[in-house]
């Protein structure tokens, strides 16, 4: 959210383009050249080239993922990317005060988000538009935050999706507390009549970045969760950068290994592999629901755009790096997989592209017509119960404003 010269509208820039529906020859070549990174500890079910890698531990967690589900995950990612690009563009046009792009993190967000059950609760940071999408939070509902008409716009309970949190690390403790509550209410480790895990068990997932791991709150969240066996999945999207700082400024070791010191599992998954993210997160959530939580997941991914629309990454990182990560694009590999292994035809991709365009158009329409909040909003919901002091301030200010209206000013 950090924004240099935020009040100056930057020039519309040439950010990375939304993925085209059809892979270019370069993209195919690139995909083939792509190498696995993230170290040997990386869990990966789908390579950048679109090949399915078997995994004894995690295959059972995606046994139900048939071609329809895969196509659905692909569609999710394309829509979310399209929405992200559209919002980014609208920021350039002055329709949004700022935008926080998720470009490149679609797989981490869709894979983990789709692993959640309706009764689970997700605590996002501020970049989790993809997770929001999986929780049924309309992209349009996100815009108020970035147009600065609002600070959070959805019904968190209905969606199982907590408000965005901007202060780095705060939500990790809040999520841990929520998960403790799930446990205290007996929503963990139950069995149905047949002795199988109960379908009403719940878990919590919390999202944070690589930079966030340095914050005391994240540590305390780990401590609490371990001590109370809280059913919480700590989902760290390591997108390699905390604004301008590379991960080496936060840690000597791969971040998933942080869990070692607390006594719960830590695992690194290819964050650009939607299937891997789905499987690993499902596994982690089940651990939690069964009462074996917490779990730390490090999704090894890449922030392909700027930190926010006010950031200029050319000041601190080389474009080579971006080019390399493009080879590991989360959407391309699913398309390659669908095409090569499942013979999915161009029709499907065209349809998804059309859906994405419609999605973006709707978003755009909505954004251009968003009303400003009324001045009274300043004073509303400061408290749940009335405050005479604040009531007086509101009345005084509104009367003052009314004076201008009477005088025909403003």
């Amino acid at each position, binding site marked *: 959210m950090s924004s240099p010269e935020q009040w100056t509208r930057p020039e519309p820039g040439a950010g990375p383009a939304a993925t085209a529906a059809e892979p270019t020859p370069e993209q195919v070549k690139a995909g083939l050249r792509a190498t696995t990174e993230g170290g040997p500890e990386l869990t990966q079910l789908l390579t950048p080239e679109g090949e399915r890698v078997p995994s004894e531990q995690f295959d059972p967690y995606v046994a139900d993922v048939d071609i329809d589900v895969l196509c659905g995950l692909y569609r999710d990612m394309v829509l979310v990317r399209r929405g992200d690009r559209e919002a980014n563009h609208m920021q350039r046009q002055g329709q949004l005060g700022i935008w926080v792009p998720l470009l490149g993190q679609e797989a981490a967000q869709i894979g983990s988000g789709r692993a959640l059950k309706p009764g689970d609760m997700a605590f996002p940071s501020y970049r989790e538009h993809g997770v929001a999408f999986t929780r049924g939070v309309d992209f349009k509902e996100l815009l108020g935050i970035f147009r600065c008409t609002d600070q959070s716009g959805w019904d968190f309970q209905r969606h199982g999706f907590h*408000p965005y949190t901007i202060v780095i690390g*705060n939500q990790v*403790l809040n999520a841990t*507390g929520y998960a403790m509550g*799930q446990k205290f209410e007996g929503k963990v480790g139950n069995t149905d009549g047949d002795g199988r895990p109960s379908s009403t068990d719940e878990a919590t997932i919390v999202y944070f970045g690589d930079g966030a791991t340095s914050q005391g709150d994240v540590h305390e969240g780990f401590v609490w969760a371990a001590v109370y066996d809280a059913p919480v999945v700590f989902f760290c999207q390591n997108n390699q950068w905390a604004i301008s700082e590379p991960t080496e400024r936060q840690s000597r070791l791969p971040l998933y290994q942080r869990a070692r010191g607390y006594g719960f599992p830590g695992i690194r998954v290819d964050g650009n592999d939607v299937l891997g993210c789905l499987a690993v997160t499902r596994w982690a959530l089940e651990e939690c629901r069964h009462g074996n939580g917490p779990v730390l997941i490090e999704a090894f991914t890449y922030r392909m755009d700027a930190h926010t629309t006010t950031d200029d990454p050319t000041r601190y990182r080389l474009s080579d790096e971006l080019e390399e990560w493009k080879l590991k694009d989360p959407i391309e590999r699913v398309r390659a997989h669908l095409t090569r292994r499942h013979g999915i035809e161009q029709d499907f991709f065209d349809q998804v592209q059309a859906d994405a365009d419609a999605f973006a158009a709707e978003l755009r329409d909505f954004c251009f017509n968003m009303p400003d909040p009324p001045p009274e909003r300043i004073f509303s919901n400061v408290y*749940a119960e009335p405050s005479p*002091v*604040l009531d007086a301030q509101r009345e005084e200010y509104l009367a003052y404003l009314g004076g201008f209206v009477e005088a025909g000013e403003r």
Partner: protein
Amino acid sequence: MMAAPTKAVADSATSSVQTLTIGKALNLGLRAAMEADDKVIVMGEDVGKLGGVFRITDGLQKDFGEQRVLDTPLAESGIIGTAVGLAVRGFRPVCEIQFEGFIFPGFDQISSQLAKLHYRTQGGVKVPVVVRVPFGGGIGAVEHHSESPESLFAHIGGLKVVSCSNPADAYWMIQQAIRCDDPVLFFEPKRLYHSGAVKAPVDTAAAPDPLFASRVVRQARGARATVVAYGPSMKVCLDAATAAAEEGIELDVIDLRTLSPLDLDPVFESVRRTGRLIAVSEAPAESSITSEIAARVQQECFYSLEAPVLRVTGFDTPYPPSKLEEHYLPDLDRILHAVDRALDW
């Protein structure tokens, strides 16, 4: 759903009137709140077996179990931060901060989440968390154990801040704070916890005053000045008023009770009669609740004031080595001196 508190209370006490210290009143109030609503949980350092270092939570873990009285890991941000999450889940956590000097690691969670979640979500999320804070000096303690940071929280929109000064308020206000859907910082006068001097009968069946209202505790026709204070300073103010009365000077005395939002109407009303106001607090004066009182009274009572609002407070220094606290803390003499100055203005 919560049972009506009065009923639960009546059940748990044998007679409806008991003579209690503030500490015991808080303990019984917490117990009543926990009986009335099983979503109420108590959390903090050493609040379980030990019953808290001041014994305010004594016996609660024994009777309500480890899942409702949590001995937490040693980190205040963790205490507040998980309490916020528990509140989002539907619990009503009551956090104990061991001493006011240790609330600062939790400051961020208080100001960024606890104070703002309800506003941020246009009322969609409620965070009925009570943060209990033993505060104030006069106990001969080492550093960080005698401070008065309440003004910091009064400055932050979205928080409610209260302080009790006597057993009846302690008993009722803690229950009201827990029932309140807003986050409440609850400042407890630790010096008086177990003091016999403020021990008093508490009628656990009588209907209490509202939580967010100040109270005139002494009023006299012909009073020549008003004294306003809260929490641990109330006793010394009342003693000062008694002493002044003996010398023929009547003082109105007002217990703020709610420090944010301030309920100053009774103060305005009194000052309009007396023409003088002394605001008393152990906290440093600079940019504080007593500053706010002075600022608002000089505006509301501009034509009634016969002397400026005077303040008797801690100095604008860190809390000194406690061998010196008798000098640092407002005492009877300093209050009477201020009354004299106001009268002679």
